[in-house]
């Protein structure tokens, strides 16, 4: 028990510290701002920890979800800047979509662990709970958060245990989306899909349903791509494929990130010696690209320290997951999904293996909203341990 507790507290502390170190070298103002957030949130959440008992969290956690939905709508109506992701009260700005992720985790846990309802009702409800914020976030438009919500729901439902068809669908839908980019790949996809469905021994209605949903996906993806995505979003999504070619656009950041990390080498340029972030060549050096700017100054060794700290943290959550049952297990899996998606998307997009969708690196990136959500998630995990 104590090991798990340590595994949940110490790695985040290390990561937050490393993030603060890097922020210190990027910009003193950013560093002080983040440091004050860390202190305020820690005190706030420590107070919560001692005041609130475990059943309260399980019962009242979903309230976060119900608070965040109106906030998301408010963001759409009164959002700041061209991308309405932020909501401001005075000088403070906040990104409610971060909170939605945690809210969704609680709501899904509570919904799916309800023993009085049938599986179908529960899944339908879970789907509706996911789609409402998903649509709101897509409207902002914030592709990264929308995707995170979907994957959180997917992993939670998967851990809950459902028909393999649904899992299969969840994996095949993105493939259907990708292959719809070209007619040839679409045809290949459907030939393989049909052969798979012939081999599988399943009721015919499930097979028809699978084909129906996937066909709908294949047909709607090009329409969404052309009509619903803004040019800057399309650029973001494709730039990572060829960052050198699309300098000055989205690819530029990724290219600069590559130069930052690559020029850092094995041991790095040394604290504060990074030229990429220091000269603001990486405009998002302190947020989405903190991994790269850390890599420029602390090299491969520094990045490996970060990676292994994350591994310890993730293994601890997975250990907890094994020990839990019911609602608690679902919440833990949601939280794991939350951290894991952020971790994967952020680092892989830094390494130009995935498109940049504006997802922060847990604990390290500058920003209060995600930090608060992350700390609240850890508080939840700790509370569940009691």
């Amino acid at each position, binding site marked *: 028990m104590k090991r798990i507790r340590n595994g949940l507290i110490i790695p985040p502390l290390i990561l937050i510290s490393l993030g603060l170190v890097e922020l210190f070298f990027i910009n003193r103002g950013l560093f002080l701002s983040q440091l004050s957030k860390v202190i305020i949130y820690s005190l706030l959440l420590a107070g919560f920890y001692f005041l609130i008992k475990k059943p309260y969290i399980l019962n009242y956690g979903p309230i976060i979800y119900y608070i965040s939905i109106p906030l998301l709508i408010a963001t759409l109506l009164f959002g700041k800047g061209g991308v309405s992701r932020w909501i401001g009260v005075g000088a403070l700005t906040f990104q409610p979509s971060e909170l939605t992720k945690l809210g969704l985790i609680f709501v899904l846990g509570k919904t799916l662990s309800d023993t009085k309802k049938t599986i179908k009702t529960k899944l339908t409800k879970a789907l509706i709970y996911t789609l409402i914020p998903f649509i709101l976030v897509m409207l902002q438009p914030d592709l990264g958060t929308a995707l995170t919500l979907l994957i959180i729901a997917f*992993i939670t439902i*998967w*851990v809950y245990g459902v028909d393999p068809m649904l899992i299969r669908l969840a994996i095949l839908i993105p493939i259907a989306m990708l292959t719809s980019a070209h007619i040839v790949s679409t045809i290949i996809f459907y030939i393989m899909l049909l052969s798979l469905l012939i081999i599988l021994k399943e009721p015919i209605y499930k097979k028809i349903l699978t084909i129906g949903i996937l066909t709908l996906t294949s047909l709607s993806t090009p329409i969404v791509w052309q009509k619903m995505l803004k040019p800057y979003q399309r650029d973001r999504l494709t730039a990572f494929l060829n960052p050198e070619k699309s300098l000055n656009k989205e690819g530029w950041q990724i290219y*600069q990130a*590559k*130069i*930052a*990390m*690559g*020029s*850092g*080498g*094995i041991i790095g340029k040394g604290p504060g010696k990074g*030229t*990429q972030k220091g*000269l*603001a*060549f990486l*405009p998002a050096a302190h947020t989405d690209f903190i991994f790269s700017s850390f*890599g*420029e100054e602390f*090299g*491969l060794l520094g*990045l*490996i320290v970060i*990676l292994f700290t*994350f*591994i310890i943290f*993730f*293994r601890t959550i*997975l250990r907890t*997951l*094994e020990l839990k049952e019911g609602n608690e297990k679902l919440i833990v*899996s949601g939280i*794991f999904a939350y951290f*894991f998606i952020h*971790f*994967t998307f952020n*680092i*892989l997009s830094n*390494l130009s*293996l995935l498109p940049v969708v504006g997802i922060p690196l847990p604990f390290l990136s500058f920003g209060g909203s995600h930090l608060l959500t992350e700390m609240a998630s850890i508080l939840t995990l700790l509370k569940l341990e009691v």
Partner: protein
Amino acid sequence: MKPERTLRILLWIIVGIIIVRLFQYQVLEHKKLEILATYNYLKEYKIPAPRGNIYDRNGITLATWKPTFRIMAIPKFLSQEDINSIKTLFGELTINLDTLHQKGNYVQLKSMLTFEEVVKFLEEAPEIKSLVIDAEPVRTYSQDAKYASHLIGYVSEASQEEIEKFQLEYGDFIGKAGCERSLDTLLRGTPGAKFMALDSKGNLIDDNPRPPIEPKQGKDISLTIDIGLQKFADSLFQNYQRGAVFGFNIKTGEVIILYSKPYFDPTNITSSWKEYINNPEKPLINRCTQGLYPPGSTFKLLTALVGLYSQTLSENTAYYCSGGFAFGNRIWLCWKPEGHGTLGLIDAIAQSCNVYFNNVGAHVGTDNFMEILEKFKLPLKTEIPIPGEAKVLIPLEDLLKGRYILPSSVINWSIGQGEIQVTPAWLSLITGIIAGNGKCTLPKITKDEQEKHFNLNLPDEFYNVVKEGMRRVVESRNGTAGYLYDPQLKISAKTGTAQNPHGREHSWFTCFFPNNNPEYVITVLVENAGHGSEAAAPIAFQLVRRFVGEKN
């Protein structure tokens, strides 16, 4: 499989991918990306190199440079707002601001500003961070450079074509004429670079992050002309509107004089461009190498060589001049109405008898005349390294293709009329070939150029006869320039009076000196000035007198 287990495997897979990618970036590509990182924040800006100086043979500076200021833009960081304020600040600009980014990453907006103008700009300019003031070396010419303007040429901003061809940048200067053009690659120099550290928004972080690379001034060039002689030639031309003087050393090829009137002032060429272009006197034409004129009697030297070569003429051949020559149903008049009487070849050259040479031409025959000239393989250009030299038109079958050639054409050709058109420089080359008994070095404008030789391999007797005739032009009492005889100047020459459809005859005089060991050739052309002996010859004598006097 339990989801926990799958997630654990997934975690390791992703961490594995990350580490492989990091290894690629930070170990395998480290060197390459490290270099990119340095280039990244250092932006390189060109420092134009001063052009090399141009001197005359005595080391007098004809062209040098001075620093001026210019305002440059970094188009990448120009916002629409900036463009608008630039428009209000400068008014009309020659460059289209909306396509500025296509012109490079450092583009000139205004040039040739004085210090006061720069101060004024700084006071009025709002904060346009993408504008930079820097110094630019600008070509300047001496007061006297205009007397040799066709040889020196001028510089001006490179055209789009030149920018592409020579990999220049917008606003760079390039030689457009004269040696500024032909020796541009030497004179241009190597631009340097200065560095600025900029962030992605174009904010200047450090204006001197690494020492600049100093530009290398272009090579200095010493021309073989003497600007004093050029100026002296100009004083001799004060009564004439148009003309040219060309002179060179037949042994080394060094050009000693290249004067063309009217001339232009290379200093203010851009501001007076329209004026020069519209001037009916065409001051931009280099009359020495681009002006084509009928050679008139000066061509008789070549006719004599053709005749001697054809064996229809010898030193002793005598013809009678009654004042006219009849061929077919036409009569060609000699310039001397009463006729020269019976003449030998030498006297015919000295007195420039038309009828004698009409006879020579008639005996050679039209086709034979062209064939022999073909065999001489004379160059049609002097290949002097000044751009735009015109090809002469002499009776060669290829050149006269499509023209109406009559059997009587040769009568005109023999006295340098008809289709024939030559430049003063080319005529100097012919005189040089005769003076050097067939051997002549082609003209060059700097000492360093390689010598190019021409050899017209004919028997020495041929040349000696012609040269004797040329000596008597000056030294014989009956010679066409006999009245100018000065025993101090050992000149051999030939006068020419070229009829032309544009008014009075052109006055020609071509000579070499000294007689016994020919070294220099000078040819003078005065447009529409009448007899060669009256206008051109005195000018040539004055020039030779001065040239020889200065040499001693």
